């Protein structure tokens, strides 16, 4: 019996999709915001920078990554404990806030993908100086 890792099941009720014999999981995400923009950090163990595919289209950010070792997750192994499955990653987010989509940057290190999404200039909080007489 395979129980899914909690880290790969962030949305209650969602199960991995199975398309064409591939298994897709939604990676866990942390979303932070500061004055300059948004930061999203995803858990993507086993993913190399070249395997990621991040697109922003019409207000929807889609993060996708193919996991090379997913191919041998069904290898004939004599499992004693099997708590997580191995599959590719995909998750989409709708971003309604005004952002600078040309300057979205991504960084992948130690299986952790960090995406920086800068806010549009007009959306940043601006300090207004008050002049006295």
């Amino acid at each position, binding site marked *: 019996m395979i129980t899914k890792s909690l880290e790969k099941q962030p949305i209650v009720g969602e199960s991995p999709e199975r398309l064409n014999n591939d298994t897709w999981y939604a990676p*866990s995400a*942390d979303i932070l915001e*500061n004055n300059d923009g*948004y930061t999203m950090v995803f*858990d993507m*163990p086993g993913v190399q920078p070249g395997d990621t595919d991040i697109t922003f289209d019409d207000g929807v950010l889609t993060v996708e990554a193919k996991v090379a070792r997913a191919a041998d997750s069904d290898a004939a192994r*004599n499992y004693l404990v099997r708590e997580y499955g191995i599959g590719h990653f995909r998750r989409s987010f709708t971003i309604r806030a005004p952002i600078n989509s040309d300057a979205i940057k991504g960084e992948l290190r130690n299986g*952790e993908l960090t995406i920086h999404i800068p806010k549009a200039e007009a959306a940043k909080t601006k300090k207004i100086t008050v002049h006295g007489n």
Partner: protein
Amino acid sequence: MLDLLDPVATPYNALQNQINGLLEDFLAEPAAWATGPEFRRYPAVNIWEDGDAAHLEAELPGVKMEDVELLIAGNQLKLGVQRQVSAPENTAWHRQERLAGSFARSFTLPWELDADKVEAKLKDGILTVTLPKAESAKPRKIKLLAS
């Protein structure tokens, strides 16, 4: 094949009895909010065996080798992980799904391990540990004397 030599099949069932929550000694207390049942099973592991050794694999993205602790005693294995999820100053959290804090899990394997030959590797957030069987646990061929 080993099942024929091992009169008691339960060592394989014993692995299912995981002793969780042994968090004293080398690890600090988990975060105050990390007390639900799901936190006792972090990190999720896959363990398989191939005759000579058991292999443990865990997904630990963002974790460095110095934050992982592995203790072996006989047929017991204890895996401790310290996971930091930090935010820079002046940031607000919108969503936190990644578990952070100190975690530890124990496993009982069906046979004794050779602690000197254990190898662990952490790459791209995946921890792979090779746990060879102790020599004394391997089946030995008994020479029959002709009479």
